[in-house]
């Protein structure tokens, strides 16, 4: 089955095409967030201007025409309303025109499932870390197959925290990788560390680090911030790993691009003799392929929606999404 997926939950607009699980195209374009961050209406405008173009380039990449598409999926949420609406509208238009089955995909499910697929994992404990989300999840069967949240951030996503701090230091976007680069060779200074069971919180750490700007070198600050935040996540993940007795661990989402985080997790996995996997960065950043991949499975399992049922949900909790 040939399925197109459209992702537009934040500043990246992505269109992917899959055929029976094989990724044929994964094209994207990102709004330049500059120094001001994401302004919803501006980003939505950017997506509207570019959506046809990116759909076109993904079709060319896959070497097919729009008419050949047999099903379509888009991100229902979570994400920024005006941005999500662009993907929703594009998907509905195409579905309507060619009478295609349409599937609504949860963004987080997309990240985890594509990672499992690419890394060849069956039933991993999943750490999903991005700008807006930081969660530890495991697939459960009841009352319907879905991702159960074992632990998560109690305030902001770890990516958001790193971004805010990078802006404070006036580093250049992409901020997460700027912090990582800056952190190289830093010295550790003590910072607040907040873990509650398998949950964690970042705002205390962020405020503390911001207060030290100018008093301590940027290098040491970035290093210590990153080490502290990732140690918190890793501690919670290790606890969840032992609790669930998982034999596999994966990391996904934007922050999964960070080498240091992957190094720490792989260390934990090794200690507990657990298989550790992740996807190439192309799939850790927001992308359309993951939406197409999940949409294909949803459609094949009969989880399609009528066009009038399709919508967006800014706070679409991952527990609510059926995982086929």
């Amino acid at each position, binding site marked *: 089955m040939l399925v197109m997926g459209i992702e537009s939950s934040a500043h990246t607009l992505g269109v992917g095409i899959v055929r029976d699980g094989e990724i044929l195209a994964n094209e994207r374009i990102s709004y330049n967030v500059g120094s001001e961050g994401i302004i919803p209406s501006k980003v939505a405008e950017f997506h509207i201007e570019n959506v046809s173009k990116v759909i076109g380039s993904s079709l060319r990449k896959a070497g097919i025409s729009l008419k050949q598409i047999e099903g379509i999926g888009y991100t229902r949420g979570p994400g920024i309303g005006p941005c999500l609406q662009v993907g929703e509208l594009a998907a509905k238009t195409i579905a309507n025109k060619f009478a295609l089955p349409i599937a609504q995909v949860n963004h987080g499910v997309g990240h985890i499932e594509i990672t499992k697929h690419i890394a060849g994992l069956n039933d991993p404990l999943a750490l999903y870390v991005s700008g807006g989300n930081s969660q530890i999840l495991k697939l459960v069967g009841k009352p319907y197959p879905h991702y*159960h949240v074992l632990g998560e951030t109690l305030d902001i996503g770890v990516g958001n925290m790193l971004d805010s701090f990078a802006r404070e230091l006036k580093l250049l976007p992409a901020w997460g990788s700027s912090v990582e680069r800056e952190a190289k060779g830093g010295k*550790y200074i*003590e910072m607040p560390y907040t873990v*509650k069971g398998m949950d964690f919180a970042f705002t205390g750490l962020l405020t503390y680090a911001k207060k030290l700007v100018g008093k301590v070198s940027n290098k040491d600050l970035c290093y210590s911030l990153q080490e502290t935040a990732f*140690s918190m996540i890793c501690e919670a993940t290790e*606890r969840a790993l032992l609790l669930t007795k998982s034999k596999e661990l994966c990391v996904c989402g934007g922050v999964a691009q960070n080498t240091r985080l992957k190094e720490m997790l792989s260390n934990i996995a090794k200690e507990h003799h657990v298989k550790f996997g992740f996807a190439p960065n192309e799939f850790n950043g927001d992308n359309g392929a993951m939406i197409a991949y999940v949409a294909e499975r949803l459609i094949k399992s009969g989880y399609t929606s009528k066009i009038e049922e399709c919508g967006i949900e800014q706070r679409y909790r991952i527990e*609510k999404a059926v995982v086929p």
Partner: protein
Amino acid sequence: MSEGAEAKIYMQEIFGERLVVKERVKKEYREASLDERLRLARTRNEARILYRAFEAGVKTPTLIGVGRFSIYMSYLEGKLLRDVKKSPYLLRQAGILLAKMHNADIVHGDFTPANIIVSKNSVYVIDFGLAEISKSIEEKAIDLLLMKRSLNEKQYKVLAYSYAKAYTASSDVFRKLAEIERRGRYQIRTLV
């Protein structure tokens, strides 16, 4: 005996007495100075709270001694509440345990059936690794929330009822709990 995420727990015989040793082991993944700071602070904190719990009449293993990264405790023969039938009697006892802790301003931090030992039909709370001394209603509510997430509705009600009867400030805690559950991120966090 077991290897937790944080510490390894093993048995040691000293003067013919069986002791449980909880030793916080070095974590290779994290920065050495952060690692040492966490292990040292947590060992001390745990020992202090274990003793405070004992003073407050909370059933726990008895604190025997403290090393740099190790705590020595008396050995309790029994099973985890997680692994036994959660009878109303045991759940009521668990509710009273939590009430006594909260009365003494001890918040456990990981109050789940996996941290309660049932020994001779009596319940004991273990693992004060994440515990704190705190008057915070929020922290107390989170203790209750963690337990609520690990029980079914009926079981939770039994526990909550005995907790409410035994802890004078419980109405504030329940109010806070409801507030936490209303917060966006938790609205439909599912139970397993």
